[in-house]
């Protein structure tokens, strides 16, 4: 099952390799990982999407917690905590005479944006849940995607509380 986990870590040199080394060394699956400093620059926040059976997920959570640099681990999926989720994708898609209008229509429907234009292509900015990004990618695929980059999702718990009080 897919799990989305936030890890708050000391913003120290090498923390990213501690995480990636943990996942590769123990054979845990990692679907996406995004990382950046938080409001408090001494803490960085990672959002990891991973999958596995219940026992593996329990190990992933415990192993993440075990790292000395880990301050907090929040597994939104197993805690059943409601959360909001967004991912950003940039998509360079074929846009020649016969498809330009079609692409524009799709962008409008998905509330995306065109952020770069050439006679042969549009580059789109698409933000939303990973499912929504998947959907636009599938629709654009037959038209011809030249290049695609996705950030992987970032998430926050719903409600008024921040992670420190959660």
């Amino acid at each position, binding site marked *: 099952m897919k799990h989305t986990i936030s890890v708050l870590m000391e913003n120290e040199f090498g923390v990213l390799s501690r995480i990636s080394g943990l996942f590769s060394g123990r054979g845990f699956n990692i679907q996406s990982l995004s990382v950046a400093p938080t409001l408090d620059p001494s803490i960085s926040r990672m959002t990891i999407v991973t999958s596995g059976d219940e026992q593996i997920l329990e190990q992933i959570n415990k192993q993440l917690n*075990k790292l000395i640099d880990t301050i907090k681990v929040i597994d939104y999926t197993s805690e059943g905590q409601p959360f909001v989720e967004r991912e950003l994708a940039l998509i360079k898609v074929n846009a020649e005479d016969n498809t330009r209008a079609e692409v524009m229509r799709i962008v409008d429907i998905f509330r995306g944006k065109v952020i770069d234009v050439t006679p042969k292509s549009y580059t789109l900015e698409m933000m939303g849940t990973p499912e929504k990004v998947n959907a636009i990618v599938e629709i654009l695929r037959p038209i011809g995607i030249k290049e695609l980059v996705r950030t992987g999702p970032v998430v926050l718990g719903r409600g008024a509380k921040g992670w420190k009080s959660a």
Partner: protein
Amino acid sequence: MTGSQILLECFKQEGVDTVFGYPGGTVINIYDDLMKSEDIQHILPRHEQAAVHAADGYARATGKVGVAIATSGPGATNTITGIGTAYMDSIPMVVITGQVPTPLIGNDAFQEADIVGITRPITKHNYLVKDVKDLARILKQAFYIARTGRPGPVVVDLPKDVQIAETDFEYPEKVELRGYKPTYSGNVRQVAKAAKMIMQARKPVIYVGGGATLSDADKELLKLAEMIQAPVTTTLMAMAAFPQTHPLALGMLGMHGTYYANMAVTNSDLLISLGARFDDRVTGKIATFAPDAKIIHVDIDPTSIKKNVRVDLPIVGDLKDVMKKLVKELGENKSELKKLSKELAPWREEIDGWKKSHPLTYKQSKSEIKPQFVIEKLRELSDDDAIVTTEVGQHQMWTAQFFKFLQPRTFLSSGGLGTMGYGLPAALGAQAAFPKRQVIDISGDGSFQMNSQELATLVQYRLPVKIVILNNNFLGMVRQWQQLFFDKRYSQTCLELPIDFKKLAEAYGATGFSVSKPGEVEETIKKAFATDGPVIMEFKVSREENVMPMVPAGAGLNEMVLAS
């Protein structure tokens, strides 16, 4: 103070009296300051791997943090096996490596190796110190992390320019690590549940692991076992945590465990796991491991719990703390306890039956020395508090089976990594910690040659380690597998070249004995113990003796092969 002076000052503050290390370009400043230091004894093994194993042996024998130093590049990479060994067995240790000056890091500079990167998966934590102002704090944290919670090795990589740079020295009083707060205190409600489960059990087995040694909980363990009169089986890492001559002792369980320990576990209705991690050498096939038992698992590290087996009652905490609470809880009701002890009588009888039908044994011989016989004689002739180290192989398993350990921290062996070459330097470290006690390295002819250069260190520092080589001219453990599972195809396991170990000892200025008759065993051991300084006793043993009984790989504990 300079960085290197701060390092030595921190050692002092941490109560470090002995360090094991090897000099080189990037630690030359540290060595210069060490020369002026009177508080710290430095021992120079002949290989950085041995320095780390020696620090490990020192740590296992004393319970203190072991300290090793190595230079950058090859010195640092030579420490890897030692660090990995300590990591797998949860041994508290701080390893200081020199590093090229910070401006050169990343340039493929002379003798540069990314040791923080290389050791990341085999350390509890590691640091690269970039600023001398951070040094005291980092060292404080390093020692704290190494010895607290589930112990483990910590590497501190110290660039040369940081050693030379100066700053004011202030040793922090407290460690502030917001991400690291090991749980020591066991949850009392869980403990109460455990007590209830124990009172209801009719076939309980206490399964003890290295955590009992690491938390020095041997007294509590003895109390608990006697209180409920339940049998105690120990992993390789815990053989010395419970007196092996005790009537409740079942010896080791697992692949080369006793028949009766494995049968007891298989038939138990409650497995009380204390500081053990359900290693695959212990469980055999998981599906048939203690199939009818409820499992209580006490461990300080949550990742150990439910990693390999299902658990009915997890208790996270320090074993000593949990056992104290458990003993107290159980002790409240004396009459119930008495009843329990009576209820368990049939179970103890069943186990006694297995003990009688399948005792731990071997065929004695008049013409050949049996390795098991040497080990029995060693126990008989050594002090109760003698410290025994081993290498890895058949001799290691025979030691676990036949050397009846009596006191905690007297058995030092590489279990998790299974490192040949561990025993001799570990004995060196233990002897450095306890110059007056008997220290014995029980070795194989193969393993001995992996760190035999340490004979020099023993002689130089007058460390009177007694080395026993059970020479079968084989990489015996592997040969045994080839015999049993590969139709006796002894591929590359015969050590053809006969080595004159007596002469080898003498070449280093140590004493050597070499014997091949059973009648000479006792006398040789006595002579060796009476000899000042390090001694090699070579026993030419029965060559194709096998370690029995055994659970073949992939089989269950109830499918033991009893003899070959």
